[in-house]
């Protein structure tokens, strides 16, 4: 039920609809809950709707956090 996935917007359609792509699989979904989504953006998809945009900078920061970098870009134990 909580099934939600980050997918890439590849085409904008009429009336808030859009085509998204996940590794070569495409699906039509609704962007009605978001404003200002462009082709190339990543969104979180849930039950046919995009719930939020994914921030690529924050994603990189989080991955860096996993790798143990602190703000200064240094690896912490």
């Amino acid at each position, binding site marked *: *039920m*909580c*099934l*939600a*996935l*980050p997918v*890439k917007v590849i085409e904008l359609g009429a009336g808030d609809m859009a085509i998204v792509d*996940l*590794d070569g699989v495409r699906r039509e979904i*609704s962007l*009605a*809950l*978001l*404003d200002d989504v462009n082709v190339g953006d*990543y969104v*979180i998809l*849930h*039950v*046919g*709707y995009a*719930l*939020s*945009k*994914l*921030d*690529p900078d*924050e*994603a990189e*920061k*989080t*991955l860096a*956090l*996993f*790798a*143990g970098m602190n703000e200064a870009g240094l690896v912490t*134990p």
Partner: protein
Amino acid sequence: MKYIDEFRDGGVAKTLAGRIASAVEPGRSYRFMEFCGGHTHAISRYGLSDLLPRNVRMVHGPGCPVCVLPIGRIDMAIDLALKQGVILCTYGDTLRVPASGGLSLMKAKARGADIRMVYSTLDALQVARGNPQREVVFLAIGFETTTPPTALAIQQAQREQLGNFSVLCCHVLTPAAIRHILQSAGLGQADTVPIDGFIGPAHVSTVIGSRPYEFVAGEYRKPVVIAGFEPLDVMQAILMLVRQVNEGRTEVENEFSRAVSREGNLKAQDRVAEVFELRREFEWRGLSVVPDSALKIRGKYAAFDAERRFSIDYRSVPDNEACECGAILRGVKRPQECRIFGTVCTPENPVGSCMVSSEGACAAHYSYGRYRGLH
């Protein structure tokens, strides 16, 4: 898969596991409740517990909307389909939840009820358009993640004057449930378990933001870390919780910063506020009656409210005597501590809802983890 695979990397998992192991203070026990069913599922599916030190225990909370749906609400849906001949559209997860009289939606379908599984409210609207002579009811379950799509569907139905479409609203609210759990623990009720911190739901938080959890830190002095959906997110969140506990901090931290902000999705929140209002109280399976914890459809959209459109009343139905779903949903008991777990109650023959939904603690443990503690 971008933004998915990187967050499932096994090598990084080992590093994070090492960091958690170094961070925990020996001899101290840490109990964290993950509220969201999606997190429960991720923990089981990836075998996360194997990577945590022994003194960190994950307690599964009531964040599975199927699991907390009381029998009486399913009975209403079955009544509509079986006795009143509506086409009932539902997400797949509710189909096998056992209700009264030995029925479930799936069994009602076998008896001739027109029950259709949908992936989205968009599909339900399509069914209504395609069957103008029939009444179509959408069984709306879910936390705040799933509520905005229902709001949009009702507004769309009004715009189109889709007179045969209505919604049986069973949407519930996360912060209210967390408050209820904390309150019960605070009042020293015997039947609760002390929790040291919460892993906040991933996708609920994209909608409501991180702000609604601030009362947990502020009033109840418990740390919260909102975690993304992938297993590395969950591990990082556990590390952050351990650090907060060690340092005596009680803050709301956001690990899922790539999708969650403090304010959340305001457009989605507005739509929800336009269509829904609070119910004074709502019965949750396992938590009994919780005030201000659920939504109903506003008068403005009464035409689309199945509860007003059809004569169906909610009747509270107690759980099977042997069923421990209540205690399990509150994190007081573990699945294996239920007398009928794995014997009478299995995924094929579920007695309680915790075994039906793949996010339920019992189903997750049965399907993924029941080898633990047996050898």
